[in-house]
């Protein structure tokens, strides 16, 4: 089967190599194998495969990873824009601070 990849050059994922301690948790938690750890430092491989779920950033003990976390869900974006609560189980709150609890990362229901 063809590898499923979404749009090119849009994701917000960045890695600060200076802060990386090579613990490899990002490599473990990423559901799309974006990270590999070579020589005690994480490397972003296929960046376009990132779905901005935020698992890597949440589990990075040194905050070396930044990603603007969100749900890639059109229905949630529409609901958010119309100011109604999403029918989807994922909640999209584009106006809030988008790093920690606000936007979510599921693809679901």
């Amino acid at each position, binding site marked *: 089967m063809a590898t499923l990849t979404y749009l090119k050059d849009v994701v917000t994922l960045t890695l600060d190599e200076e802060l990386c301690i090579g613990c490899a948790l990002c490599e473990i938690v990423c559901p799309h194998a974006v990270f590999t750890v070579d020589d005690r430092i994480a490397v972003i491989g296929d960046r376009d495969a990132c779905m*901005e779920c935020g*698992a890597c950033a949440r589990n990075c003990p040194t905050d070396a990873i930044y990603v603007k976390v969100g749900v890639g869900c059109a229905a949630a974006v529409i609901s958010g824009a119309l100011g109604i609560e999403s029918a989807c189980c994922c909640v999209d709150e584009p106006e809030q601070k988008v790093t920690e609890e606000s936007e979510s990362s599921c693809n679901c*229901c």
Partner: protein
Amino acid sequence: MTKRSHFITGEMATPVGPVPCVESGLSLRDRLETWKVRWRIGRMKYTIPPGLYALGSPDASSEVVVTANFKLTFDSVRRVLPGHDFWILVLDTKGVNVWCAAGKGTFSTGELIHQIATARLSEIVEHRRLLLPQLGAPGVAAHEVKKGSGFKVLYGPVLARDIPAFITAGMEATPAMRTKSFPLGERIVLIPIELTGALRYMIPVMAAFYFLSGLGGPGDYWANVSTFGFLASASLFAGVVAGAVLVPLLLPWLPGRPFSLKGLWTGLVAAGIILLWLGSGLTTLSGRLEAGAWLLMMTALSAFLGMNFTGSSTYTSLSGVRKEMRIAVPLQIGAAAVGLILWFTSRLIA
């Protein structure tokens, strides 16, 4: 617990009191409940009371598997572990699956620490390890759980069914177990949800077109309804099928990365079939306008529904969806509006 759930087989004694035992493997009733959830029949939230459960006959050295309190998720854990002895710690995710709950913040560091304390887990097991689903990671910071509870988080595989292999391999996951794929089988089980979701608002729309169709045309009201009204409903239904069934089914093979583009292709095919069916009707001006109207409205509808499938897919980012929507939504609205004007015109001059 007010009423004992049907999958509870009894209780087992622990140093901190009785813990409910769960049946491993699924009963016919479990399977029926799953089927009903997929088709939106009855209640959508089958929740499990949060807390600790025993699967098999776990003891102080048995592993602790952490999961969500959505019934389907809980089932996926207990069905794959027959013959194994495990503790299952269920977090209160408000009846939502692990991945969604992790994103929403209910499958979280705080909730995990809370449930560990409530269950008095450190008095039940002698080790300090927890096996978490990998897809819980967006909500849980392993290093903070360690700090807050003393338990070390081990991220297991994406799928519960790989847990036995993961444990056999000495708590090591293969790259395949760590990757969230989106195979045909997983896409097929989502089709009922996509279809029922779309039909909920499309059935009233289809009915409106059906009865409006009688107001213009060569025959009397009911003659017009039976020709143009039937065509309208059939076209809209075909557009729904193109977007909500064909897009999930054919996802990897439809050209282009944006989901709305994938829906555009299936919509064009569906519209092509409708136009072939119209056939000789295309000789009159009103027939041509009507054909153009359905070409535009069906592709707009299918592209929209295809775009909506991003929410159920397992690899789309919010940044990507926003970029896609900025271009696709105005085009969809434009095509639908022009289609609607053409359709009303064709009804008026017919």
